[in-house]
């Protein structure tokens, strides 16, 4: 998918696990895994807001667009 989610990098920088993030943002681990592995087809603004608040980052830090990736 051309839009890549950099959740792994952000979690690593903050020494946080996916489980920790799931607890903080109130999103299921299953859904966060779907997001992390690039299988999500869409993200709600409420989810984006919760992740950015928990990771203290900007939406642009979380997602990058790279042309040509599938």
């Amino acid at each position, binding site marked *: 998918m051309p839009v890549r989610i950099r959740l792994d990098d952000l979690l690593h920088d903050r020494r946080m696990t996916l489980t920790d993030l799931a607890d903080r943002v109130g*999103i299921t681990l299953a*859904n*966060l895994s*779907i*997001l992390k592995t690039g*299988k*999500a*087809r*869409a*993200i*709600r603004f409420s*989810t984006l807001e919760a992740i950015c608040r928990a990771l203290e980052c900007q939406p642009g830090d979380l997602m990058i667009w790279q042309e040509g990736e599938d």
Partner: protein
Amino acid sequence: MLRVTDRVVWMLEVLNRIFMAVFVLVLLATALAGEWLRSRIGAPASLDAGTVIAAVRLVMLLGLATGVAVSTIFRRLREIFAAVRAGDAFAPVNGVRLRHIAWALLAIQLLDLALGAVAAFVERAAGMPLGWSFTLTGWLAVLLIFVLAEVWTQGAAMRDELEGTV
């Protein structure tokens, strides 16, 4: 509730099959024992026994065709019930099933019109009322189910769009 409804529909389907079997038996009787039936029919003077037999055959055939359409409705209904019980009410295939039900209902309405035509002919020839009358309810149901099928299909598409949304 759904389980009870499913059982009811199952019993109605059994009843439908029994009726269809009776229609087949009557058809066979007109074919194999036509002469005997002709001699036994107390047809009014204005209507010969042969015409009565032909009318009976036609009505049985219309009944059989109706039974096929009714069976389609019951089968599709039970398939929808199964999908809903499995937690997948808005599977796209349920929109298709509803459309099949609508087409089967339309077939039943058309067969009913044909039955009305036979009844009108017999009434005029025999001079006795048979009690068939046109009702709008079935036709409205056809329209309703087609609309519902379209709504269901769009709902399934909307659900599909949400799939994979976090």
